[in-house]
């Protein structure tokens, strides 16, 4: 198996040697580093695209299986070329810009949407020394840079000159902004334990045991908050087509629409990698090289996302907001408090018997806080009769304004 570990470094070395011998002596050494840097940049930028194609195929096949049908199976063997066909189709579709849109903002929005997602892949470590840049505020950088997507969504909805796009954008901003805080505070639990925000050091900290064992509650909060941040079902109500057509990208077509789809799936892939890095010990694993372990974990987490999508129905907007503010936010505060106390009490690393204790505490807190949500009381309604019933039918739902 040694050749397998050594493959990529050896290829890199061979390529560098070839470049050095092929270029004339008059060219200085920095050119080689420039070429190598541009190549690694190309890899980082293309990685999400290839990954997204695999993920779209996997999601459609898995959803098909969950819904007791086959899924795409016509294009290529087992339908494996279906995402390629989709990409070609989307590229050859007409790009319609409707009347009255704010053209500058309308065209910039897809760029603002996709570029921060690509930056995520520059920070994530793919192996012990395989990363593009090693920021010491890594995880905070990822959360900060992906928050720019909220602005992109609002730009798209606002500039579209379409009231459904505007409603969708407002819903999206309210939802993304609400789930940002439980997300950040769940990450804080990891930072308290490891004492660093550098992703490489966080992975190094998990070389013996993955942090999900010490942060079961934090993992659940993070997973739910991420599903909402990425507009995955059951939180996909900003794309609730029966209410607001397609949400903020109603007016987008052709390649611009494709960019929004690409950004959505690339964010899913990036955040799956972040979950793997924070809670499932990242690229660490026996037998295989680091980047392969990371991708195995990414696709495992993505499978869980597809599973939740196939299982849970869409929530109402008041339920979504209540879940963020009344359930996840207090839970994440309690999680940080418990973690900080544990770290202060056991200064030289957490003992292993804390693992079952933490799981029991987490399950207990979820069971207690769950009662505060009180979804049952909100959905149970007494059906009136006579003139009251008529008045209730005629009353506009939600007060008439969005």
């Amino acid at each position, binding site marked *: 198996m040694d050749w397998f570990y050594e493959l990529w470094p050896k290829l890199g070395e061979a390529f560098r040697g070839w470049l050095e011998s092929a270029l004339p002596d008059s060219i200085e050494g920095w050119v080689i580093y420039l070429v190598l*840097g541009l190549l690694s*940049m190309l890899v*980082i*930028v293309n990685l999400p695209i290839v990954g997204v194609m695999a993920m779209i195929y996997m999601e459609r096949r898995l959803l098909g299986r969950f819904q007791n049908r086959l899924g795409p199976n016509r294009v290529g063997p087992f339908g494996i070329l279906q995402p390629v066909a989709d990409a070609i189709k989307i*590229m*050859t*579709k*007409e*790009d319609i810009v*409707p*009347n*009255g849109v704010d053209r500058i903002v309308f*065209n910039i929005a*897809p*760029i603002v949407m*996709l*570029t921060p997602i*690509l*930056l995520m892949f*520059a920070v994530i470590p793919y192996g012990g020394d395989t990363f*593009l*840049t*090693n*920021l010491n505020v890594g995880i*905070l950088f990822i959360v900060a840079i992906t928050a720019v997507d909220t602005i992109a969504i609002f730009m798209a909805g606002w500039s579209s000159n*379409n*009231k*459904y796009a*505007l409603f969708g954008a*407002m819903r999206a901003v*309210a939802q993304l*902004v*609400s789930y940002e*805080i439980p997300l*950040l505070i769940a990450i*804080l639990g990891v*930072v*308290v334990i490891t*004492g660093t*925000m550098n992703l490489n050091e966080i992975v190094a900290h998990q070389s013996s045991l993955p942090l999900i064992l010490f942060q079961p509650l934090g993992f659940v909060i993070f997973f739910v908050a991420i599903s909402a941040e990425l507009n995955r079902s059951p939180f996909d109500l900003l794309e609730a087509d029966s209410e607001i*057509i397609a949400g903020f990208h*109603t007016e987008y077509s*052709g*390649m611009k629409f*494709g*960019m929004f789809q690409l950004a959505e799936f690339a964010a899913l892939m990036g955040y799956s990698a972040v979950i793997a890095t924070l809670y499932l010990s990242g690229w660490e694993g026996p037998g295989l090289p680091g980047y392969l372990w990371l991708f195995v974990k990414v696709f495992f987490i993505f499978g869980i996302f597809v599973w939740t999508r196939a299982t849970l129905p869409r929530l109402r907007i*008041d339920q979504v*907001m*209540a879940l963020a*503010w*009344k359930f996840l936010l*207090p839970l994440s*505060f309690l999680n*940080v408090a418990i973690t*900080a106390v544990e770290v*202060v009490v056991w*200064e030289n690393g957490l003992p292993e018997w804390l693992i079952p204790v933490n799981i029991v505490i987490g399950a207990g807190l979820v069971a207690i806080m769950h009662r505060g949500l009180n979804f049952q009381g909100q959905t149970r309604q007494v059906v009136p009769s006579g003139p009251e019933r008529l008045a209730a039918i005629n009353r506009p739902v939600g*007060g008439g*304004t*969005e």
Partner: protein
Amino acid sequence: MPEQYSLEYTAVLIITIAGIGMVLAAFFASMILAPRSKSEAKQIPYECGIPPTGQFWAQLHLRYYIFAILFLIFDIEAIFLFPWAIIFRSSGAVIFYEMVLFIAILFFGLVYSWKKGALRWR
């Protein structure tokens, strides 16, 4: 150390430029490949296939602003919490209890807005 920082953030800058370039290249490719035919009907904003009614500038509910203000408060709190999470082990008990007090005040704020009904989506 400063040189290392600038090197690390140069990579971030380069990826940003590459990302913008990638999107622009995709737009360029679709400009070449995609057909173009303008028509009046296509330019109408989409509303379920019927002619659009009313203003495009719809009124928005006030509740969005309440959540925006709450978000600002708690997001700034999170920014204060991250440096604390890194240093509190080595900096003694006072720092730890100060932050406990800070979190407690904000948690009280959350409970207050909950009881006042600000968190209800009406």
